[in-house]
C-alpha cells in the first residue's frame, strides 16, 4: 500500500509540514477574526521587518551573548566534573545524588533566590543558564567516561601516559560522542531558559522584547518574536548538529540518537 507522501523527496517533507501549518493558522485566524490570533499575512511581514530593519538585533545579540556565556562556562565546568565522576567512584557517589535531586527542578524556579543573592541582572541570568546547561553536560560526560573501554586506558597506561593526561587525551576524546549529545540537549534547553530568565528579569533580550510587545497589545508583534525565537532555536540546533557530525566522523555509527529535553 502506497502511503501518503512516500514519493516526496525527504527534504521536502518538513517544508510541506511547515507550509501546511502556516496555512492552517491563516485559515483559523481568518475565521476567528480576533486580535489575539492575528493572521500569518500580518505576522510574517512584521517578522521580516524586525529582522530586515535590524530592530531586533540588539535584543537578539544580548540573548545570544547570555546563552554563549552560560553555555561556555557550563562546558568548561560541566565536562571535567562529568568525566572525573565517570572515572572515580568516590566523586561519582558525591555527585550523583546531587545531580539526581537537582535534575527535575525547573531551573527558572530558582531565579527569585538567585536574584536575591546576585541581584536582578545579567549575573543572575547567566548563573541560571549555567546551572541548566551543566546538568546534561555533566550527566552525558559521566556516561561517556564510564563507558570508555578499559583496554584503551590500559594501552595508554602501558605507554606511560599519566592519569591526568589520560583524562585529557584518552577519556575526553573517547567520551566526545556522548558529550556532544549532552551538549545538544544543553543548547536547546539553554535557549529555553535564556528566554525565560529574560521574561522574569526584564531588561533586554528576546524574552523581554516579547513581553514588551504583549504589554503594549501588539499581538502580531508578539507572535513575530515567538517565531524569531523558534527559528533561532532551530538554527542553533541545526548548526550544532552539523558540527557534532564533523567532530565524530571517526566514531562507529550509532542509530536512533534520542534527544530528551527537560527544563
Amino acid at each position, binding site marked *: 500500500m502506497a502511503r501518503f507522501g512516500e514519493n516526496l523527496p525527504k527534504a521536502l517533507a518538513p517544508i510541506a509540514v511547515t507550509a501546511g501549518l502556516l496555512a492552517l493558522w491563516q485559515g483559523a485566524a481568518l475565521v476567528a477574526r480576533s486580535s489575539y490570533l492575528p493572521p500569518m499575512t500580518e505576522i510574517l511581514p512584521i517578522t521580516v521587518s524586525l529582522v530586515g530593519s535590524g530592530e531586533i538585533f540588539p535584543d537578539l545579540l544580548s540573548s545570544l551573548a547570555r546563552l554563549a556565556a552560560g553555555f561556555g562556562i557550563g562546558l568548561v565546568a560541566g565536562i571535567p566534573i562529568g568525566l572525573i565522576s565517570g572515572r572515580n567512584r568516590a566523586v561519582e557517589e558525591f555527585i550523583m545524588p546531587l545531580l539526581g535531586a537537582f535534575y527535575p527542578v525547573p531551573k527558572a524556579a530558582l531565579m527569585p533566590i538567585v536574584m536575591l543573592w546576585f541581584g536582578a541582572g545579567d549575573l543572575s541570568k547567566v548563573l541560571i543558564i549555567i546551572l541548566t546547561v551543566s546538568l546534561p553536560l555533566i550527566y552525558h560526560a559521566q556516561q561517556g567516561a564510564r563507558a570508555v*573501554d578499559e*583496554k*584503551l586506558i*590500559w*594501552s*595508554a*597506561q*602501558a*605507554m*606511560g*601516559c599519566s592519569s591526568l*593526561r589520560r583524562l585529557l587525551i*584518552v577519556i575526553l*576524546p*573517547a567520551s*566526545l560522542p556522548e558529550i556532544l549529545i549532552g551538549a545538544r540537549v544543553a543548547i536547546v534547553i539553554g535557549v529555553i531558559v535564556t528566554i525565560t530568565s529574560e521574561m522574569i528579569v526584564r531588561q533586554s533580550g528576546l524574552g523581554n522584547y516579547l513581553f514588551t510587545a504583549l504589554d503594549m497589545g501588539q499581538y502580531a508583534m508578539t507572535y513575530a518574536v515567538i517565531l524569531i525565537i523558534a527559528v533561532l532555536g532551530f538554527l542553533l540546533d541545526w548548526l550544532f548538529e552539523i558540527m557534532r557530525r564533523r567532530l565524530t*566522523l*571517526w*566514531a*562507529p555509527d550509532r542509530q536512533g540518537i534520542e534527544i530528551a529535553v527537560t527544563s
Partner: protein
Amino acid sequence: MIILEGVTKTYQRAQGGGEVQALGRISTSIKGGEFVALVGPSGCGKSTLLYIVGGFVPKSSGRILVNDAPVTGPGPDRGPVFQEFALFPWRTVLGNILFGLREQKVPKPEAQSRAQRLIEMVHLKGFEHLYPKELSGGMKQRVAIARTLAYDPAILLMDEPFGALDAQTRTMLQDELLAIWERDTKTVLFVTHAVDEAVYLADRVLVMTAAPGRIKADLAINLPRPRRRDELLRDANYQNYVIEIGHMLDRPAAA
C-alpha cells in the same frame, strides 16, 4: 626475564559478598627472548594472569619480578596486544602508532620515521590516514601490534590477539608475528585457547587447569626454527604436541 612466585588472584563477588579464587599460586619464570604460550580452558584465569604481569590488574598475593624489579603497575617495558584491538578510534592508523612514541617523548622526526617503518612492516602502507572503523579486523590487529612495537617494549603481552580473526587472516598474522619475533628477539607471553596456535608459535607451552587456574604442565616445544607451517603440519612431533596438550585440556578438572 619474568619471575612469578606464588601469584594468586581472588575477586570479591559483585553482590552478596564472598570471594572467587581466579588464580591459585602460579610460579614460573620466563627467560628473556623466550616465546611462551599460555593455554587453558576458558575462564581459567589465563588472561587475568597476563593482566597481572602487565600491571593492569593487581595480584592478591605472591611476587612478580620483571627484570629484577617488582611489578607495581603498567610500564612501557611490557606492551599489551588485546583480542579487541583497543585502538584509539579517534586517531588514524598513523595517529595510533605515534601515540606511544609521543608519550615516550621520542623526538618528532624519529617518531615519524619509526612509524613509517612499522607501517611498512605490518603491510599497512597506503592506509595510514584511515580511522580504525574503516579497517578490517586483521588490519586493526596489525595496527595494534605496530602501535605496541613502536615504543619498543622488551616484553609483548598478547591476550588472544588473533582470536577474533578469520582462519586465513589468523595464519597470516601468526607468520608475521613469528617473523617479527625472530628478528627483534622480544620476550612474548601469548595467551590463547587454540592449541595448534600455541604449539606453532611458542618455545614453551604452559597448560592451565580450570578455575582456580594453576599451571598443570610446562612443556618445551622442541621444533626447529624458523618454523614453516607446511613442514610442521607434516611433522609427527608437532602433531604429538598438539594431541598431547589437547588431551590435557579435555580432561575435566576433577580427574
